């Protein structure tokens, strides 16, 4: 596991691999993580437009940092470690912190889920773990994708 600081940097620099597609701001469509960023690794126009609004994003639940925690990290692909090419986990560039309304049941990391909640941009540090996120879904609920 990498330290929270590293993860927060990654989250802050989170790189969308493809510029956000030109699409209207609506929570009805399922967003992809990469649509929250532009080609310059900044928040996309779509993300700014949707800030504070209810959105749905698809992805995978990375194994939570610890039990009984109120947030988890959403990844665009199942979180994986390459035993023969890495000395430790390489976190992907585009991740999203998901703060649930209440506690949540952990879902296997390879089960696709759809998260719905309020899109929040800007830094927020989790008090207990020090995990700093730059983009979040807050008051979130999720279902199987």
């Amino acid at each position, binding site marked *: 596991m990498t330290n929270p600081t590293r993860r927060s940097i990654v989250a802050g620099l989170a790189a969308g*691999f493809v510029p956000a597609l030109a699409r209207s701001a609506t929570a009805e469509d399922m967003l992809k993580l990469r649509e929250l960023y532009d080609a310059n690794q900044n928040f996309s126009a779509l993300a700014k437009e949707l800030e504070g609004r209810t959105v749905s994003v698809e992805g995978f639940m990375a194994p939570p940092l610890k039990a009984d925690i109120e947030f988890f990290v959403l990844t665009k692909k199942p979180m994986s470690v390459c035993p023969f090419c890495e000395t430790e986990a390489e976190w992907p560039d585009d991740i999203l912190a998901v703060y649930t309304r209440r506690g949540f049941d952990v879902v*296997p990391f*390879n089960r696709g889920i759809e998260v719905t909640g309020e899109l929040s941009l800007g830094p927020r540090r989790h008090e207990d773990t020090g995990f700093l996120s730059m983009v979040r879904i807050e008051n979130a609920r999720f279902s199987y994708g």
Partner: protein
Amino acid sequence: MKTSMLAITATLIGTGAMAQDLPQADSAWFTDAQERLQAQLEAQPNTNTAKNVIILIADGNGVGTNYATRMFMGQQDGGFGDDYVMHHETFPSLGLVKTYNVNSQTPDSAGTGTAMMSGVKTDIGVLGVNSNVDRGDCSTLPGNEVANASEIFTELGKEVGIVSTARITHATPGAAYAHSVDRNFAATLPEGCNTQKTIADQLLDAMYEGRVDVAMGGGRRNFITGDMTDNEGDSGRREDGRNLIEEAQENGIAYAWNAETAGELPTDGSTPILGIFEDSHMSYEADRGDEPSLSEMTEIALTNLQAKAGDNGFFMQVEAGRVDHAHHGNNLARTVTDGAEFVRTIEMVDEMTNDEDTLIIVTADHEHSFALNGYCGRGSDILGLCMGINNQGVENTGEPVMAADGKPYTVGMYTNGSSSVLLEQPGGEFFGSRPVVTNEEAQDIDYVQQALVPRSSESHSAEDVAVYGKGPFAHLLEGTVEQNYIFHVMHHAFTAE
């Protein structure tokens, strides 16, 4: 009339089979094959002494993966994919390579890299040493080093260049210049390890000593310490208080860290070149931002090597390192987009060199647990669903083939990995069913193909890889060979009289 034309063709081609009047003789399949046959009959081995040797390795690009990239490039080109010809597939010589390591049926890139860069097989996970070492135990290193490509070819008077999209201290590039009892000793060593330097140190030593003239890739973090930040604000992994990048610049090595500074590098051969473009590995080609592509790095390296080496010649290793990483993530889309950039690089290298004096070898270090489904009709998207065979035409029916579970499936899948369809249940058991996937979902750049065996990361496999060659002594790359044999062909090409 038709018969007489066939007879003329048969006379021109001059084979026994063509003396017969065959009803299929005017088929394009038939005539194309006859043309290929004629070309093979006329081929003559090139036994010139090689001035230059260039080996291009796509990490994880076994025969199956090579097929997937061919299909992808051909379909991007507007065709069905099957009949597309990637540049290295025009090379005259082809062999199959057995990739296992001494102590591992399934190989890794350190063992395979050492085989190709030193001429002997060794254990999994070690670089530039024989199989007498115990991985990770520095005390077992003395006496077990094997000479590597930068040492051997420098002694032959060749300049040496290394290019990779992985960290430049990673296994495949590292095998060309380093000796390490563990591939992971890139930035730090275990306490008490005093028989070797870190792999990053060894790269800079090789550059100072003139054994490596060009090194371009990723991995700045292995050259600076944790309390230092690199050109893009990321901290390092070293624990010795040193900044190897600054030291390199102070020692006259030209340095680049992004696309702009790469473009400003001198390529007249006057200065060694160090390009390190990311904190860790370079980006996948599909995600690439402010950094040069594999072909752009290779062009810079090749130009500089040609300028510096002149008639003395050079050796260059080029690695498409992230084909492997995308496979590890069960993400076929990035595998083939990096594979396509690898093919563009091969074509460029071929255009910039002369077959008369340059041996070009294209190969892989190992394959992955990537597998292909059937029965798919022509034109099924290699990234998408397996579509039905059209018995009334050529192109597929456009209707997905359904499995016994009533669900469609993709053309390419994995036998293991993080995208396993088996999910861990409370209590630790695994079971599950295949998610339904649409063609559009499967074609997405982030889609991860379904796998069976649950693993945190998809694995390599021991399946053979291909080796393609053109230029001096490329004809020796035929048959089914041990991987370390490739080194011996390169060495023979350099030294043949």
